[in-house]
């Protein structure tokens, strides 16, 4: 154990405004520090993949931790700041978000889901002007996934602000508005409109919608364009800024680097993969728009790969998206370098999943002796546990101070 004790490396002091190393403060609480046996048993490390699995049985975790499992899970620090470089940041109470387009504006599921418990909500893609979207059919099931081509149907940024921002401002869950556009001017105009609106906690730039002719995909496939649109929006607003990457590119690292240089606070990855489904009966493509975006368990390996690559390329937090449907998937993404995750397609099958994942993650961390899930972030990266090995540092995974 001694050998693994965490020490603040002197080199990190040169990190500019980020003098305090998020990884230097393991935030072990005394209550947790007193269980070295369980910590040893379940300690996640590069050499053992086993710890990823006990979480699948909350009962196991509970039995190991005894009657106090619930208490211990309650003390696990799930907070994360997705915009550590920004004054005020984007503090989330937990790293489980709901992905854009799968949760509407947070109101649709009514009282079936307790939205206030979520880490954050990414709302449906919002454009400057209202859009009616693509021709139906717009969704279809595919092997281990689904294709969608909604085509950014939305009431426009004014409509969204009028209809929902007032409600959002009364919520404790932050709402991140997903923004799409056809030109840099569009993105900037929407960002300006959202800037300072109560209820809007941040912006996620959707530069990667594969379903519309000019859905901004051209921004996601070109590093210069991605950097330019990020920088332009950055200048237009002080809101925390996430940029969502497309997997439909040759090398995602250059684009991620450009987005970081453009001033993004975090990167979310990935958007859907472009695909087609066939209507055999009529001998034509099934979707009205021909092309659709593939999501669901089928794309999890792709998402993991992109997060793994981006997390080694940038210092800003990475939000993992793609095929998350169980605690194991969350753990995989965290180990690959994601500081938070977004649940998407799985919500359609099980609307209560995101809230359950929060509890399962806390229980798993408690059962494995982690004071915070953040200790897991980037555990599988080749740079190894922080401070050792070569390569870049892991991306930021900084907690927040308030406890609800």
């Amino acid at each position, binding site marked *: 154990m001694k050998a693994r004790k965490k020490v603040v490396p002197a080199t990190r002091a040169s990190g500019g405004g980020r003098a305090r190393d998020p990884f230097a403060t393991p935030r072990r609480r005394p209550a947790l520090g007193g269980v070295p046996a369980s910590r040893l048993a379940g300690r996640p490390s590069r050499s053992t993949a086993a710890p990823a699995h006990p979480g699948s049985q909350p009962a196991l975790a509970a039995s190991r931790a005894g009657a106090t499992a619930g208490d211990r899970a309650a003390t696990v620090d799930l907070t994360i700041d997705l915009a550590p470089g920004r004054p005020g940041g984007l503090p989330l109470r937990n790293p489980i978000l709901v992905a854009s*387009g*799968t*949760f*509407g*504006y947070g109101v*649709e*599921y*009514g*009282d*079936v889901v307790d939205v206030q418990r979520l880490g954050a909500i990414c709302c*449906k893609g919002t454009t400057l002007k209202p859009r*009616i*979207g693509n*021709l*139906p*059919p*717009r*969704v*279809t*099931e595919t*092997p*281990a*996934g*689904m294709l*969608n081509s*909604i085509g950014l*149907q939305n009431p426009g940024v004014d409509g969204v602000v009028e209809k929902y921002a007032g409600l959002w401002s009364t919520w404790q869950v932050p709402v991140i508005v997903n923004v799409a556009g056809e030109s840099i001017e569009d993105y900037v105009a929407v960002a300006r409109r959202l800037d300072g609106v109560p209820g809007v906690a941040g912006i996620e730039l959707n530069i990667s919608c594969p379903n519309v002719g000019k859905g901004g995909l051209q921004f996601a496939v070109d590093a210069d364009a991605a950097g330019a649109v990020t920088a332009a929006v950055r200048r237009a607003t002080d809101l925390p800024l996430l940029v969502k990457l497309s997997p439909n590119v040759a090398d995602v690292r250059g684009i991620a680097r450009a987005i970081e240089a453009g001033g993004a606070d975090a990167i979310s990855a990935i958007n859907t993969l472009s695909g087609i489904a066939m209507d055999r009966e009529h001998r034509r493509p099934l979707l009205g728009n021909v092309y659709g975006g593939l999501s*669901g*368990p089928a794309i999890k390996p792709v998402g993991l790969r992109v997060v793994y690559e981006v997390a080694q390329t940038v210092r800003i937090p990475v939000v993992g998206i793609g095929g998350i*449907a169980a605690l194991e998937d969350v753990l995989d993404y965290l180990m690959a370098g994601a500081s938070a995750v977004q649940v998407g*397609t*799985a*919500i*359609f*099958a*099980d*609307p*209560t999943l995101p809230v359950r994942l929060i509890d399962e993650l806390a229980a798993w961390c408690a059962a494995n002796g982690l004071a915070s899930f953040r200790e897991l972030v980037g555990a599988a990266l080749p740079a190894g546990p922080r401070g050792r090995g070569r390569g870049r540092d892991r991306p930021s995974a900084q907690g927040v101070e308030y406890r609800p």
Partner: protein
Amino acid sequence: MRLADAELLDSRQILPGQWLQTYAAPWLAAANPRAGQFVHVRTPDYSGLVLRRPFSINTLDRGSGALTIHFRITGKGTEWLARARPGERLEMLGPLGRPFEIDPRTRHVLLVAGGLGIAGVRALADEALEQGRRVTLLFGAARAAEVYPSTLLPPEVEYVVATDDGTLGHGGFVTDLVPAYEAWADQAFACGPWPMLATLGSLAAGRDARLGVARLGRKPRRAPSNAPRGSTQARRKAWLQVSLEQHMGCAVGACLGCVVFGVDGPQRVCREGPVFAADEILWEPVA
């Protein structure tokens, strides 16, 4: 809207490839669903089948909470569903969508069903009879073997059948039968394939002009209601209401996946529908 388990009580094949299943869902009955609404059923294996499957509430016994759904095997999800054994528990989300709206003054109710579309209007037969209205069901199928068994209908329903190949009842489309009933029927409700509904839609649009003479002796109508199109009041006044189906994602209005294009832009089948007044829908583009 509630999310709960329902236990499969009985499952039987009533027509080739078509199944009728009964579930114990007292929680659904307690939510007081109406004809036209639907439930969204979870599939067993998320890693393979990622979407829930929507099914119209075929019948619902309010006393016992026995829900029936009627479906045809069209893919992996329904294949699995047909294999389910009594005792299995399925997770359902419901009741969802907006119901059929019967005008309180309507005495004669015409139901038009094409094939599996019977599942969409079956509950309305019960509801209308319960309210003391007279019900005629026009049913169309490809051939006699696929005609919905009359034993599954309440005896008070007048049941008229059309088959495409003429093996039973009228030979031809079910829509051929509608003109004979359009004067009798105060309101019509339909569910079935898109071309059938589109034909009915155009029939309904011309009905007032054709029946104008029948109105001679009546008091002039009040000024047309100013209820906005798509509102419950406007639908209640509509002569023809249709129940549509569409590939569906979330079924609560979040994903915008199940839209059809209406006169006023895209309409979510799960939220604004599945029941629409015929004049809300743009029938041409997909026909």
